[in-house]
Protein backbone atom coordinates (compact mmCIF):
# COMPACT_ATOMS: atom_id res chain seq x y z
CA UNK A 1 0.00 0.00 0.00
CA UNK A 2 1.59 3.22 -1.09
CA UNK A 3 1.30 5.99 1.44
CA UNK A 4 0.06 9.01 -0.40
CA UNK A 5 -0.63 8.13 -4.02
CA UNK A 6 -2.16 11.51 -4.64
CA UNK A 7 1.10 13.28 -4.00
CA UNK A 8 2.71 11.74 -7.06
CA UNK A 9 -0.43 12.39 -9.03
CA UNK A 10 -0.58 16.10 -8.23
CA UNK A 11 3.11 16.55 -8.90
CA UNK A 12 2.62 15.01 -12.28
CA UNK A 13 -0.42 17.18 -12.85
CA UNK A 14 1.39 20.40 -12.12
CA UNK A 15 3.32 20.16 -15.35
CA UNK A 16 0.24 19.36 -17.41
CA UNK A 17 -2.24 21.72 -18.88
CA UNK A 18 -5.28 22.42 -16.72
CA UNK A 19 -8.51 20.75 -17.73
CA UNK A 20 -10.35 24.02 -17.63
CA UNK A 21 -12.42 25.24 -20.53
CA UNK A 22 -11.70 28.95 -20.58
CA UNK A 23 -15.24 30.14 -21.08
CA UNK A 24 -15.85 33.04 -21.49
CA UNK A 25 -12.33 34.41 -20.91
CA UNK A 26 -9.34 33.16 -18.99
CA UNK A 27 -9.67 35.73 -16.23
CA UNK A 28 -12.29 38.27 -15.51
CA UNK A 29 -11.80 41.22 -17.88
CA UNK A 30 -11.37 44.65 -16.38
CA UNK A 31 -14.93 45.48 -17.07
CA UNK A 32 -17.54 43.00 -18.17
CA UNK A 33 -19.60 45.66 -19.85
CA UNK A 34 -16.57 46.87 -21.74
CA UNK A 35 -15.60 43.35 -22.67
CA UNK A 36 -19.05 42.47 -23.94
CA UNK A 37 -19.04 45.71 -25.89
CA UNK A 38 -15.78 44.79 -27.51
CA UNK A 39 -17.06 41.33 -28.28
CA UNK A 40 -20.05 42.75 -30.07
CA UNK A 41 -17.72 45.03 -31.99
CA UNK A 42 -15.69 41.98 -32.88
CA UNK A 43 -12.55 43.27 -31.18
CA UNK A 44 -12.49 40.61 -28.54
CA UNK A 45 -13.45 37.02 -28.59
CA UNK A 46 -15.33 34.83 -26.21
CA UNK A 47 -13.90 31.43 -25.58
CA UNK A 48 -16.78 29.19 -26.52
CA UNK A 49 -18.49 26.94 -24.00
CA UNK A 50 -18.28 23.19 -24.23
CA UNK A 51 -20.17 22.43 -27.42
CA UNK A 52 -23.71 21.25 -27.12
CA UNK A 53 -24.58 18.04 -28.94
CA UNK A 54 -27.21 18.02 -31.61
CA UNK A 55 -30.67 17.60 -30.18
CA UNK A 56 -29.60 19.56 -27.16
CA UNK A 57 -32.65 20.89 -25.34
CA UNK A 58 -32.16 24.60 -24.97
CA UNK A 59 -34.59 27.48 -25.14
CA UNK A 60 -37.79 26.60 -26.92
CA UNK A 61 -38.61 28.09 -30.34
CA UNK A 62 -42.05 28.43 -31.75
CA UNK A 63 -43.28 28.75 -35.27
CA UNK A 64 -46.41 30.73 -34.67
CA UNK A 65 -47.58 30.65 -38.24
CA UNK A 66 -47.60 26.88 -38.39
CA UNK A 67 -49.49 26.39 -35.16
CA UNK A 68 -53.02 25.16 -35.46
CA UNK A 69 -54.01 25.87 -31.89
CA UNK A 70 -54.81 22.26 -31.03
CA UNK A 71 -53.57 22.56 -27.42
CA UNK A 72 -52.02 19.12 -27.42
CA UNK A 73 -48.79 20.67 -26.26
CA UNK A 74 -50.55 22.10 -23.26
CA UNK A 75 -51.97 18.76 -22.39
CA UNK A 76 -48.60 17.11 -22.13
CA UNK A 77 -46.64 19.97 -20.69
CA UNK A 78 -45.71 18.93 -17.19
CA UNK A 79 -44.85 22.43 -16.01
CA UNK A 80 -47.87 24.38 -17.10
CA UNK A 81 -45.52 26.58 -19.10
CA UNK A 82 -47.76 27.00 -22.10
CA UNK A 83 -50.55 29.46 -22.16
CA UNK A 84 -53.19 29.61 -24.82
CA UNK A 85 -53.95 32.97 -26.35
CA UNK A 86 -57.58 32.91 -27.25
CA UNK A 87 -57.58 35.89 -29.58
CA UNK A 88 -54.92 34.64 -31.92
CA UNK A 89 -55.40 30.91 -31.27
CA UNK A 90 -51.70 30.56 -30.62
CA UNK A 91 -49.72 29.71 -27.57
CA UNK A 92 -47.30 31.60 -25.36
CA UNK A 93 -44.47 29.80 -23.58
CA UNK A 94 -42.87 31.10 -20.44
CA UNK A 95 -39.26 30.06 -20.51
CA UNK A 96 -38.85 30.51 -16.77
CA UNK A 97 -41.65 28.05 -16.23
CA UNK A 98 -40.52 25.59 -18.88
CA UNK A 99 -38.46 22.67 -17.73
CA UNK A 100 -36.90 21.97 -21.12
CA UNK A 101 -38.36 18.51 -21.43
CA UNK A 102 -39.30 18.91 -25.08
CA UNK A 103 -42.40 16.83 -24.50
CA UNK A 104 -44.45 19.41 -26.36
CA UNK A 105 -42.11 19.09 -29.34
CA UNK A 106 -42.89 15.41 -29.55
CA UNK A 107 -46.59 15.96 -29.13
CA UNK A 108 -47.21 18.80 -31.53
CA UNK A 109 -48.89 17.40 -34.62
CA UNK A 110 -47.42 20.05 -36.94
CA UNK A 111 -43.95 20.23 -35.42
CA UNK A 112 -44.02 23.91 -34.80
CA UNK A 113 -42.18 23.68 -31.50
CA UNK A 114 -38.44 23.00 -31.29
CA UNK A 115 -35.68 23.13 -28.78
CA UNK A 116 -32.83 25.40 -29.83
CA UNK A 117 -29.32 25.08 -28.48
CA UNK A 118 -29.50 28.44 -26.79
CA UNK A 119 -28.96 27.89 -23.10
CA UNK A 120 -27.40 31.06 -21.73
CA UNK A 121 -30.58 32.68 -20.65
CA UNK A 122 -29.72 34.43 -17.41
CA UNK A 123 -31.71 37.57 -16.89
CA UNK A 124 -32.46 40.06 -14.19
CA UNK A 125 -36.16 39.99 -14.92
CA UNK A 126 -37.97 36.71 -15.03
CA UNK A 127 -40.60 38.11 -17.39
CA UNK A 128 -38.22 39.82 -19.75
CA UNK A 129 -38.99 39.68 -23.42
CA UNK A 130 -36.22 37.23 -23.96
CA UNK A 131 -37.89 34.75 -21.65
CA UNK A 132 -41.31 34.72 -23.21
CA UNK A 133 -41.80 32.95 -26.50
CA UNK A 134 -44.88 33.58 -28.52
Amino acid at each position, binding site marked *: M*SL*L*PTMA*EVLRQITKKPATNLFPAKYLPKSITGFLGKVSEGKAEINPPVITPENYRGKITYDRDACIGCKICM*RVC*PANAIEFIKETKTVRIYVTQCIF*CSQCNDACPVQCLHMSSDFMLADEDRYSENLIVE
Partner: protein
Amino acid sequence: MTSENKSKKAPYTIPIGPTHPALKEPILFTFRINGEVVEEVDFAPGKAHRGIEWMGMRRNPVQIVHLTDRICGICGVSHTFAFARAIEQIVGIDVPDRAHYIRTILAEFERIQSHLLWAGVAAHELGFDTLFNLAWRVREESMDLIELLTGNRVNYAIVQVGGVRRDIEEEKFARIKEGLRYYESLIDKLLKLFLHDKTINMRCRDCGLLTYDAALKLCTVGPTTRASGVRADVRLDSPYAAYGELNFDYVMPDLYTGETRGDVYDRIVVRLLEVAQSVDLIRQCMKQMPEGETLWETKMPKLLAACKKAEGEAVGRVEAPRGECLHYVRMNKSDSPYMWKVKASTYSNQLSWLEMLKGEQIADIPIIVASIDPCMSCTDRVAVVRDGKPDIYSKEYLHRLSVEKTRRLMND
Protein backbone atom coordinates in the same frame (compact mmCIF):
# COMPACT_ATOMS: atom_id res chain seq x y z
CA MET B 1 -26.07 26.95 9.41
CA THR B 2 -27.90 27.32 12.63
CA SER B 3 -26.95 28.89 15.87
CA GLU B 4 -30.05 28.58 17.93
CA ASN B 5 -28.47 26.17 20.34
CA LYS B 6 -28.78 27.44 23.86
CA SER B 7 -27.54 24.70 26.06
CA LYS B 8 -23.79 24.73 25.99
CA LYS B 9 -22.77 22.22 28.58
CA ALA B 10 -21.33 18.83 27.84
CA PRO B 11 -23.02 16.72 26.73
CA TYR B 12 -24.53 19.31 24.51
CA THR B 13 -26.57 19.08 21.39
CA ILE B 14 -25.65 20.54 18.09
CA PRO B 15 -28.05 20.82 15.26
CA ILE B 16 -26.65 20.25 11.82
CA GLY B 17 -28.71 21.36 8.92
CA PRO B 18 -31.05 21.82 7.31
CA THR B 19 -28.51 23.85 5.42
CA HIS B 20 -24.97 22.88 6.12
CA PRO B 21 -22.03 22.49 3.81
CA ALA B 22 -21.81 18.81 4.59
CA LEU B 23 -25.34 18.21 3.53
CA LYS B 24 -25.94 19.33 0.04
CA GLU B 25 -29.59 18.86 0.71
CA PRO B 26 -31.83 20.03 3.48
CA ILE B 27 -32.29 17.78 6.45
CA LEU B 28 -32.03 18.55 10.12
CA PHE B 29 -29.87 16.42 12.35
CA THR B 30 -29.66 16.80 16.07
CA PHE B 31 -26.67 15.32 17.78
CA ARG B 32 -26.03 14.98 21.42
CA ILE B 33 -22.32 15.37 21.73
CA ASN B 34 -20.01 14.58 24.56
CA GLY B 35 -16.61 16.04 23.84
CA GLU B 36 -16.14 15.03 20.25
CA VAL B 37 -18.20 11.88 20.49
CA VAL B 38 -21.75 11.47 19.29
CA GLU B 39 -23.96 10.06 21.98
CA GLU B 40 -27.33 10.28 20.36
CA VAL B 41 -28.64 11.07 16.94
CA ASP B 42 -31.94 12.19 15.73
CA PHE B 43 -32.89 13.53 12.38
CA ALA B 44 -35.86 15.24 10.95
CA PRO B 45 -36.26 14.89 7.22
CA GLY B 46 -39.03 16.67 5.42
CA LYS B 47 -37.22 19.82 4.53
CA ALA B 48 -37.42 19.15 0.82
CA HIS B 49 -40.97 17.93 0.72
CA ARG B 50 -42.69 19.27 -2.33
CA GLY B 51 -45.75 17.03 -2.43
CA ILE B 52 -44.77 15.24 -5.60
CA GLU B 53 -47.08 12.28 -5.11
CA TRP B 54 -49.94 14.61 -4.48
CA MET B 55 -49.16 16.53 -7.64
CA GLY B 56 -48.78 13.31 -9.57
CA MET B 57 -52.25 12.24 -8.62
CA ARG B 58 -53.48 15.31 -10.50
CA ARG B 59 -51.49 14.84 -13.69
CA ASN B 60 -51.43 12.41 -16.56
CA PRO B 61 -48.73 9.77 -16.94
CA VAL B 62 -46.86 11.67 -19.63
CA GLN B 63 -46.58 14.67 -17.39
CA ILE B 64 -45.69 12.52 -14.44
CA VAL B 65 -42.79 11.09 -16.37
CA HIS B 66 -41.18 14.50 -16.24
CA LEU B 67 -42.21 14.98 -12.67
CA THR B 68 -40.47 11.74 -11.71
CA ASP B 69 -37.36 13.05 -13.41
CA ARG B 70 -37.43 15.85 -10.90
CA ILE B 71 -38.04 13.78 -7.85
CA CYS B 72 -34.34 13.97 -7.95
CA GLY B 73 -31.88 15.37 -10.38
CA ILE B 74 -29.19 12.81 -9.74
CA CYS B 75 -30.88 9.60 -10.68
CA GLY B 76 -33.47 10.82 -13.04
CA VAL B 77 -33.59 7.59 -15.00
CA SER B 78 -34.35 5.36 -12.05
CA HIS B 79 -37.51 7.02 -10.88
CA THR B 80 -38.90 7.46 -14.36
CA PHE B 81 -37.94 3.94 -15.13
CA ALA B 82 -39.68 2.51 -12.08
CA PHE B 83 -42.75 4.60 -12.69
CA ALA B 84 -42.90 3.64 -16.34
CA ARG B 85 -42.57 -0.02 -15.44
CA ALA B 86 -45.50 0.24 -13.10
CA ILE B 87 -47.70 1.94 -15.68
CA GLU B 88 -46.61 -0.48 -18.39
CA GLN B 89 -47.70 -3.39 -16.26
CA ILE B 90 -51.08 -1.83 -15.57
CA VAL B 91 -51.75 -0.84 -19.15
CA GLY B 92 -50.21 -4.00 -20.48
CA ILE B 93 -47.67 -2.37 -22.69
CA ASP B 94 -45.07 -4.49 -24.37
CA VAL B 95 -41.90 -2.46 -24.40
CA PRO B 96 -39.78 -2.96 -27.52
CA ASP B 97 -36.54 -4.88 -26.97
CA ARG B 98 -34.33 -2.11 -28.22
CA ALA B 99 -35.89 0.24 -25.71
CA HIS B 100 -35.01 -2.21 -22.95
CA TYR B 101 -31.40 -2.06 -23.97
CA ILE B 102 -31.35 1.70 -24.26
CA ARG B 103 -32.92 2.01 -20.84
CA THR B 104 -30.25 -0.28 -19.47
CA ILE B 105 -27.45 1.70 -21.07
CA LEU B 106 -28.80 4.93 -19.67
CA ALA B 107 -29.36 3.46 -16.24
CA GLU B 108 -25.77 2.31 -16.20
CA PHE B 109 -24.45 5.67 -17.35
CA GLU B 110 -26.46 7.16 -14.61
CA ARG B 111 -24.80 4.82 -12.17
CA ILE B 112 -21.35 5.81 -13.36
CA GLN B 113 -22.17 9.45 -13.08
CA SER B 114 -23.80 9.09 -9.72
CA HIS B 115 -21.06 6.99 -8.16
CA LEU B 116 -18.35 9.35 -9.34
CA LEU B 117 -20.36 12.22 -8.01
CA TRP B 118 -20.59 10.44 -4.72
CA ALA B 119 -16.90 9.63 -4.64
CA GLY B 120 -16.16 13.30 -5.11
CA VAL B 121 -18.56 14.39 -2.42
CA ALA B 122 -17.16 11.79 -0.06
CA ALA B 123 -13.65 13.08 -0.69
CA HIS B 124 -14.89 16.57 -0.06
CA GLU B 125 -16.41 15.54 3.24
CA LEU B 126 -13.01 14.20 4.16
CA GLY B 127 -11.46 17.53 3.28
CA PHE B 128 -9.70 15.96 0.31
CA ASP B 129 -10.48 18.50 -2.35
CA THR B 130 -8.02 17.21 -4.88
CA LEU B 131 -9.87 13.93 -5.19
CA PHE B 132 -13.13 15.82 -5.19
CA ASN B 133 -11.87 17.77 -8.16
CA LEU B 134 -10.51 14.69 -9.82
CA ALA B 135 -13.67 12.62 -9.43
CA TRP B 136 -15.84 15.36 -10.80
CA ARG B 137 -13.43 16.09 -13.59
CA VAL B 138 -13.66 12.52 -14.85
CA ARG B 139 -17.39 12.53 -14.21
CA GLU B 140 -17.71 15.21 -16.89
CA GLU B 141 -17.05 12.56 -19.52
CA SER B 142 -20.17 10.66 -18.51
CA MET B 143 -22.09 13.91 -18.38
CA ASP B 144 -21.02 14.65 -21.93
CA LEU B 145 -22.15 11.22 -23.03
CA ILE B 146 -25.47 11.55 -21.27
CA GLU B 147 -25.96 14.94 -22.83
CA LEU B 148 -25.17 13.43 -26.18
CA LEU B 149 -27.67 10.64 -25.71
CA THR B 150 -30.47 12.56 -24.04
CA GLY B 151 -30.04 16.23 -24.81
CA ASN B 152 -29.49 17.38 -21.28
CA ARG B 153 -26.95 16.88 -18.53
CA VAL B 154 -29.45 16.28 -15.78
CA ASN B 155 -33.14 15.47 -15.89
CA TYR B 156 -32.70 13.43 -19.01
CA ALA B 157 -36.36 13.17 -19.96
CA ILE B 158 -35.56 10.07 -21.94
CA VAL B 159 -37.63 7.26 -20.51
CA GLN B 160 -41.23 7.37 -21.60
CA VAL B 161 -44.08 5.07 -20.78
CA GLY B 162 -43.71 2.38 -23.37
CA GLY B 163 -40.04 2.82 -24.17
CA VAL B 164 -37.56 5.58 -24.62
CA ARG B 165 -37.90 8.88 -26.36
CA ARG B 166 -34.66 8.76 -28.27
CA ASP B 167 -32.83 6.05 -30.05
CA ILE B 168 -29.09 5.62 -29.78
CA GLU B 169 -28.01 5.84 -33.38
CA GLU B 170 -25.14 3.84 -34.81
CA GLU B 171 -23.00 6.95 -35.33
CA LYS B 172 -22.96 7.67 -31.62
CA PHE B 173 -21.43 4.30 -30.82
CA ALA B 174 -17.91 5.42 -31.54
CA ARG B 175 -18.19 8.30 -29.16
CA ILE B 176 -19.66 6.08 -26.46
CA LYS B 177 -16.89 3.54 -26.87
CA GLU B 178 -14.36 6.28 -26.53
CA GLY B 179 -15.93 7.23 -23.23
CA LEU B 180 -15.95 3.64 -22.04
CA ARG B 181 -12.29 3.27 -22.91
CA TYR B 182 -11.60 6.43 -20.94
CA TYR B 183 -13.17 4.95 -17.85
CA GLU B 184 -11.53 1.60 -18.31
CA SER B 185 -8.18 3.28 -18.39
CA LEU B 186 -9.04 5.34 -15.35
CA ILE B 187 -10.50 2.81 -13.02
CA ASP B 188 -7.21 1.49 -11.71
CA LYS B 189 -6.03 4.97 -10.97
CA LEU B 190 -9.23 5.81 -9.15
CA LEU B 191 -9.01 2.67 -7.06
CA LYS B 192 -5.42 3.46 -6.21
CA LEU B 193 -6.03 7.07 -5.29
CA PHE B 194 -9.07 6.38 -3.19
CA LEU B 195 -8.29 3.08 -1.61
CA HIS B 196 -4.54 3.10 -1.12
CA ASP B 197 -4.35 6.49 0.44
CA LYS B 198 -3.16 6.35 4.02
CA THR B 199 -5.22 9.31 5.14
CA ILE B 200 -8.41 7.97 3.60
CA ASN B 201 -7.72 4.64 5.22
CA MET B 202 -7.31 6.32 8.56
CA ARG B 203 -10.57 8.14 8.24
CA CYS B 204 -12.75 5.47 6.68
CA ARG B 205 -11.62 2.13 7.98
CA ASP B 206 -13.85 0.91 10.80
CA CYS B 207 -15.76 4.12 10.74
CA GLY B 208 -19.55 4.09 10.48
CA LEU B 209 -19.84 0.35 10.87
CA LEU B 210 -23.00 -1.40 9.76
CA THR B 211 -22.94 -5.11 10.48
CA TYR B 212 -24.45 -7.74 8.24
CA ASP B 213 -27.25 -8.35 10.72
CA ALA B 214 -28.01 -4.69 11.17
CA ALA B 215 -28.02 -4.19 7.43
CA LEU B 216 -30.56 -6.97 7.06
CA LYS B 217 -32.66 -5.84 9.97
CA LEU B 218 -32.83 -2.25 8.83
CA CYS B 219 -33.79 -3.33 5.28
CA THR B 220 -30.98 -1.30 3.75
CA VAL B 221 -30.56 -1.43 0.00
CA GLY B 222 -28.04 -0.86 -2.72
CA PRO B 223 -24.32 -0.33 -2.20
CA THR B 224 -24.94 0.37 1.47
CA THR B 225 -26.25 -3.09 2.06
CA ARG B 226 -23.79 -4.79 -0.27
CA ALA B 227 -20.92 -3.14 1.58
CA SER B 228 -22.16 -4.89 4.69
CA GLY B 229 -22.06 -8.21 2.94
CA VAL B 230 -25.73 -8.62 2.00
CA ARG B 231 -26.10 -9.93 -1.51
CA ALA B 232 -28.98 -7.85 -2.75
CA ASP B 233 -29.38 -6.15 -6.10
CA VAL B 234 -32.69 -5.76 -7.90
CA ARG B 235 -30.95 -6.13 -11.23
CA LEU B 236 -30.02 -9.68 -10.27
CA ASP B 237 -32.74 -10.61 -7.83
CA SER B 238 -35.60 -9.82 -10.19
CA PRO B 239 -34.11 -8.87 -13.53
CA TYR B 240 -35.83 -6.26 -15.62
CA ALA B 241 -35.12 -4.45 -18.87
CA ALA B 242 -32.07 -6.08 -20.44
CA TYR B 243 -30.43 -7.20 -17.22
CA GLY B 244 -31.65 -10.75 -17.56
CA GLU B 245 -29.60 -11.13 -20.69
CA LEU B 246 -26.42 -9.65 -19.33
CA ASN B 247 -23.64 -11.38 -17.55
CA PHE B 248 -22.71 -9.87 -14.18
CA ASP B 249 -22.70 -10.52 -10.48
CA TYR B 250 -23.13 -8.77 -7.14
CA VAL B 251 -20.35 -6.34 -6.37
CA MET B 252 -19.11 -7.11 -2.90
CA PRO B 253 -16.26 -5.38 -1.07
CA ASP B 254 -14.35 -8.62 -0.49
CA LEU B 255 -13.77 -8.82 -4.23
CA TYR B 256 -11.17 -6.17 -3.76
CA THR B 257 -10.06 -6.28 -0.15
CA GLY B 258 -10.69 -9.92 0.67
CA GLU B 259 -12.88 -9.09 3.63
CA THR B 260 -16.17 -7.43 4.44
CA ARG B 261 -16.31 -5.05 7.35
CA GLY B 262 -19.29 -2.88 6.50
CA ASP B 263 -17.50 0.39 7.11
CA VAL B 264 -17.29 3.55 5.06
CA TYR B 265 -14.25 2.20 3.29
CA ASP B 266 -16.18 -0.80 2.05
CA ARG B 267 -18.85 1.48 0.69
CA ILE B 268 -16.21 3.30 -1.32
CA VAL B 269 -14.94 -0.01 -2.63
CA VAL B 270 -18.39 -1.13 -3.73
CA ARG B 271 -19.22 2.09 -5.51
CA LEU B 272 -15.92 2.34 -7.33
CA LEU B 273 -16.12 -1.28 -8.45
CA GLU B 274 -19.64 -0.68 -9.67
CA VAL B 275 -18.33 2.02 -11.96
CA ALA B 276 -16.21 -0.65 -13.61
CA GLN B 277 -19.16 -3.04 -13.67
CA SER B 278 -21.38 -0.44 -15.33
CA VAL B 279 -18.82 0.16 -18.05
CA ASP B 280 -18.79 -3.54 -18.70
CA LEU B 281 -22.58 -3.76 -18.75
CA ILE B 282 -22.81 -0.93 -21.28
CA ARG B 283 -20.33 -2.72 -23.48
CA GLN B 284 -22.42 -5.88 -23.32
CA CYS B 285 -25.58 -3.95 -24.15
CA MET B 286 -24.02 -2.30 -27.14
CA LYS B 287 -22.93 -5.67 -28.45
CA GLN B 288 -26.29 -7.39 -27.97
CA MET B 289 -28.65 -4.55 -28.75
CA PRO B 290 -31.33 -5.61 -31.26
CA GLU B 291 -32.68 -3.36 -33.99
CA GLY B 292 -36.22 -2.07 -33.86
CA GLU B 293 -38.61 0.41 -32.44
CA THR B 294 -37.88 2.35 -29.30
CA LEU B 295 -41.36 3.38 -28.30
CA TRP B 296 -44.56 1.42 -28.02
CA GLU B 297 -46.63 4.41 -29.06
CA THR B 298 -45.15 7.60 -30.42
CA LYS B 299 -48.37 9.56 -30.50
CA MET B 300 -48.85 11.02 -27.07
CA PRO B 301 -52.62 11.44 -27.19
CA LYS B 302 -52.96 7.75 -28.06
CA LEU B 303 -50.72 6.78 -25.21
CA LEU B 304 -52.70 8.92 -22.83
CA ALA B 305 -55.91 7.39 -24.03
CA ALA B 306 -54.58 3.92 -23.43
CA CYS B 307 -53.59 4.88 -19.92
CA LYS B 308 -56.95 6.36 -19.27
CA LYS B 309 -58.61 3.11 -20.12
CA ALA B 310 -56.44 1.10 -17.81
CA GLU B 311 -57.36 -0.12 -14.39
CA GLY B 312 -55.28 -1.94 -11.82
CA GLU B 313 -52.23 -1.58 -9.69
CA ALA B 314 -48.60 -2.45 -10.06
CA VAL B 315 -45.21 -1.96 -8.55
CA GLY B 316 -42.17 -0.94 -10.52
CA ARG B 317 -38.78 -1.69 -9.04
CA VAL B 318 -35.38 -0.78 -10.32
CA GLU B 319 -31.93 -0.76 -8.87
CA ALA B 320 -31.04 2.91 -8.67
CA PRO B 321 -27.43 3.87 -7.98
CA ARG B 322 -28.32 4.09 -4.30
CA GLY B 323 -30.33 0.92 -4.19
CA GLU B 324 -33.82 -0.28 -4.79
CA CYS B 325 -36.26 2.35 -5.94
CA LEU B 326 -39.91 1.37 -5.90
CA HIS B 327 -42.98 2.96 -7.40
CA TYR B 328 -46.47 1.76 -6.63
CA VAL B 329 -49.18 2.98 -8.97
CA ARG B 330 -52.88 2.32 -9.10
CA MET B 331 -54.88 3.43 -12.11
CA ASN B 332 -58.59 3.75 -12.02
CA LYS B 333 -59.81 4.63 -15.50
CA SER B 334 -58.96 8.25 -15.30
CA ASP B 335 -56.33 10.67 -16.57
CA SER B 336 -54.33 10.56 -13.41
CA PRO B 337 -53.28 7.70 -11.21
CA TYR B 338 -55.60 7.02 -8.36
CA MET B 339 -52.67 6.30 -6.14
CA TRP B 340 -48.96 6.78 -6.53
CA LYS B 341 -46.37 5.93 -3.96
CA VAL B 342 -42.63 6.35 -4.19
CA LYS B 343 -40.17 4.56 -2.03
CA ALA B 344 -36.73 5.85 -2.72
CA SER B 345 -33.54 4.10 -1.77
CA THR B 346 -32.50 6.65 0.82
CA TYR B 347 -35.82 6.07 2.49
CA SER B 348 -34.73 2.52 3.16
CA ASN B 349 -31.20 3.44 4.06
CA GLN B 350 -31.56 6.42 6.29
CA LEU B 351 -32.38 4.56 9.46
CA SER B 352 -28.98 2.97 9.31
CA TRP B 353 -27.56 6.38 10.19
CA LEU B 354 -28.67 5.95 13.75
CA GLU B 355 -26.78 2.71 13.89
CA MET B 356 -23.67 4.04 12.21
CA LEU B 357 -23.33 7.37 13.92
CA LYS B 358 -23.59 6.36 17.51
CA GLY B 359 -20.24 6.54 19.25
CA GLU B 360 -18.46 8.14 16.33
CA GLN B 361 -16.78 11.52 16.39
CA ILE B 362 -18.14 14.83 15.20
CA ALA B 363 -15.50 14.86 12.54
CA ASP B 364 -16.91 11.67 11.08
CA ILE B 365 -20.49 12.80 10.89
CA PRO B 366 -20.21 14.21 7.37
CA ILE B 367 -18.53 11.20 5.87
CA ILE B 368 -20.84 8.74 7.60
CA VAL B 369 -23.92 10.66 6.59
CA ALA B 370 -22.59 10.82 3.07
CA SER B 371 -21.59 7.18 3.03
CA ILE B 372 -25.09 5.93 2.31
CA ASP B 373 -25.19 8.51 -0.48
CA PRO B 374 -28.30 10.11 0.86
CA CYS B 375 -30.51 12.28 -1.21
CA MET B 376 -33.35 13.76 0.58
CA SER B 377 -35.19 14.99 -2.46
CA CYS B 378 -36.85 11.72 -3.17
CA THR B 379 -37.11 10.65 0.42
CA ASP B 380 -39.02 13.46 1.97
CA ARG B 381 -42.60 12.51 1.69
CA VAL B 382 -44.76 12.67 4.71
CA ALA B 383 -43.70 15.30 7.14
CA VAL B 384 -45.92 15.47 10.14
CA VAL B 385 -44.97 18.56 11.99
CA ARG B 386 -47.00 19.84 14.89
CA ASP B 387 -45.72 22.64 17.07
CA GLY B 388 -42.39 22.14 15.47
CA LYS B 389 -42.03 18.66 16.89
CA PRO B 390 -42.39 15.64 14.68
CA ASP B 391 -45.10 13.41 16.05
CA ILE B 392 -44.23 9.86 16.58
CA TYR B 393 -46.76 7.41 15.34
CA SER B 394 -46.92 4.09 17.03
CA LYS B 395 -46.75 0.95 14.97
CA GLU B 396 -50.32 0.09 15.87
CA TYR B 397 -51.58 3.47 14.80
CA LEU B 398 -49.78 3.24 11.50
CA HIS B 399 -51.11 -0.21 10.92
CA ARG B 400 -54.63 0.92 11.61
CA LEU B 401 -54.14 3.70 9.09
CA SER B 402 -53.00 1.28 6.44
CA VAL B 403 -55.85 -1.08 7.17
CA GLU B 404 -58.29 1.72 6.69
CA LYS B 405 -56.63 2.81 3.54
CA THR B 406 -56.56 -0.67 2.11
CA ARG B 407 -60.25 -1.06 2.80
CA ARG B 408 -60.94 2.18 1.06
CA LEU B 409 -59.00 1.04 -1.95
CA MET B 410 -60.78 -2.29 -2.04
CA ASN B 411 -64.18 -0.78 -1.74
CA ASP B 412 -63.68 1.77 -4.48
